[in-house]
């Protein structure tokens, strides 16, 4: 684990840049991570997904997979890919300051 300066305070991140301590997260950090990962601006739709992921993780200890995210957040999978290109669940988790979602087995 390393610490890195994303926005103002130093935060703990893993090798891939996921926050390891969700409590260190704030909206500025989210915007900084988003910009670093090719999402120039976080729209309301982005925030809806990011907050959903974060909330789910904080309540259950697990972040949903992309498929469950599509079903439960109400945002269609297609749109999720438009909002968060490449890997929506992964990227939304990163921006939301929670660990990388564990893959299904």
């Amino acid at each position, binding site marked *: 684990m390393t610490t890195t300066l994303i926005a103002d305070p130093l935060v703990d991140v893993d090798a891939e840049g996921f926050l390891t301590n969700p409590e260190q997260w704030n909206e500025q950090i989210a915007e900084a991570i988003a910009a670093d990962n090719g999402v120039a601006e976080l729209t309301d739709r982005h925030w809806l997904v990011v907050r959903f992921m974060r909330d789910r993780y904080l309540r259950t200890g697990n972040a949903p997979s992309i498929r469950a995210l599509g079903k439960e957040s109400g945002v269609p999978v297609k749109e999720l890919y438009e909002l968060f290109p490449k890997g929506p669940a992964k990227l939304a988790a990163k921006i939301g300051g929670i660990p*990388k979602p*564990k893959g299904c*087995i």
Partner: protein
Amino acid sequence: MSKKQIVILGGGTGGTMTANRLRRRFDADDADVHVVDRDDRHVYQPGLLFVPFGLAALDDIVRPRQRQLRNGVTFHQGEVAWVELERNEVVLLDGTVLPYDVLVVASGVRLQPDETEGLTEPGWNERVFTFYDPAGAEGLRLALEHFDGGRLVVNLVDMPIKCPVAPLEFAFLADWHLRERGIRARTELVYATPLDAAFTKPIASQHLGSLLGEKEIELVTEFNTGEVDGIGGALTSYDGRVLDFDLLVTVPLHGGAAFVERTLGLADALGFVSTDKSTLQSTVKPNVFALGDATDLPTSKAGSVTHFEAEVLTENVARYFVDAELECGFDGHANCFIETGFHKALLIDFNYETEPLPGHFPTAFGLPLLRESRLNHLGKLAFQWVYWHALLPGREIPGIGPAMPTAGKRQTSFTPEEGAVR
């Protein structure tokens, strides 16, 4: 105790093993054991992989469900409408109501090809197939017979799926089959997966990834299937990549049984029963247990897993009846043969905490792990006999228990950057 009613939903691998174990565990005066399934066809599912290559026939791998159940187990053929969790009753579509003291959900998964855009449109079962059900496997056998080269794409739409190694095995066997027929040189074999490597677990992924390379099978990773065009022969990912195919072998999305979804509060968003990962009691109600593919447990959906679970579940149902503390006996243990073609197979053995490692199973003198061998292939073939004659009846198999053995395993180092976790 007063006579208990145990109702088991599903007469497949998990339901049958559990019914037979519970029947032996309790006197007929102490408990009735009921099994409900909508049909009377028990499929030996590992056999489906071989059907497309003519290496197994459907007749060999399908047997009546009832015949696998011990005397004293009552079989009900009918579709479950839903479960009345508050009233402890199962309601069947024909109106039958089965009251229970303990419910065991063993209803497996449901294939959901219609959840992927275009997958069940024209082309489905013509040049787009799945071998995950008997009809699809048989259809694919005929299509492969007529296949004369071109692009063959093997694809899994998304995890979780039953037997996560099966699509890889299919690709390996297809390579072998096409070489035997002398048309491998004019066939491009592609393996497209939503994972970021060949398999879900890092060390096994390295081994399996290099096998794909050796067999000249192109690996396409992080491919999340968005759309299938069965007539045009194109598979499109959500991020806009297109894979052309002449023949597509896909593993459709998996969800829980329809009645599980219709029972409020029983399952997660995908229809898998919320289950305690070490006791197999559901987190919904203490008298509801679940095992096998129907659960949301973070382990493989595989028969071996179900077998290890059945032992723990049977013990915990007995403990539940006498108000004893449940045994936290399930460690996520999975054990899978991986057919690699040319009469060879690999074996992997792992649990929640330990990923598949090289070495030998179950001890230093056992079958080789994570290495191709003829012995493993023979093991896989012999397993079908073991399945019908030892596993389903619920007999103990010496040396193979629920807890994952560590004696023969070698720890190896691994660089996390190459991890396969999404």
